């Protein structure tokens, strides 16, 4: 997962927004609409990034279909240090 995280977050076009999504979800779980509002990114873009992060096992969805909340996975938390190292570059 470590190599995938590095590529997914620092080397792709949407990497910066993916870092911002993970940061926001680190505070507490949110649904796609809230993320779009808080990060000032289009809903469709947020949806796309959520799907990519989910398929890589970084986040998982819980709750009912509409307004599903997204959580960071336990698997991702094992690589928290890697994420923090990447995120410090963003400041």
């Amino acid at each position, binding site marked *: 997962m470590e190599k995938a995280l*590095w*590529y997914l977050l*620092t*080397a*792709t*076009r*949407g*990497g*910066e927004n993916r870092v911002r999504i993970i940061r926001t979800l680190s505070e507490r779980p949110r649904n796609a609409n809230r993320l779009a509002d808080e990060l000032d990114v289009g809903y469709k873009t947020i949806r*796309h990034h959520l799907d*990519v992060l989910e398929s890589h096992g970084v986040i998982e969805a819980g709750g009912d279909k509409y307004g599903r909340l997204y959580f960071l996975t336990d698997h991702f938390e094992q690589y928290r240090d890697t994420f923090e190292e*990447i995120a410090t*570059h*963003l400041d």
Partner: protein
Amino acid sequence: MAMSTQILAASVLSGVNIVFLSALAAVWVRNYRTFRTSLVLGLLAFAVVMLVENAFALYFFFTMQSLYSGDPHVQQAVLVLRGLQLVAVAFLTYVTVR
């Protein structure tokens, strides 16, 4: 001497490679400004070298046709190599911009 169809096709493929590689380089330049990681710098160097390689290929196709004109097998081999590079670069572009 007129350019053979296969070398012309190889030139077009090189042109498309250059478009893809420019898109990749643009993403990586922007991300390097944001993240400053050696991973992105390495990827950027990769894209730049591949851009130079394709520029040289185009240069050879247009200026050294005597190199290729004698042998149709050489022309075919050149076309296959350009085509395979295009497939490789297209995959990398897809996973990078999506």
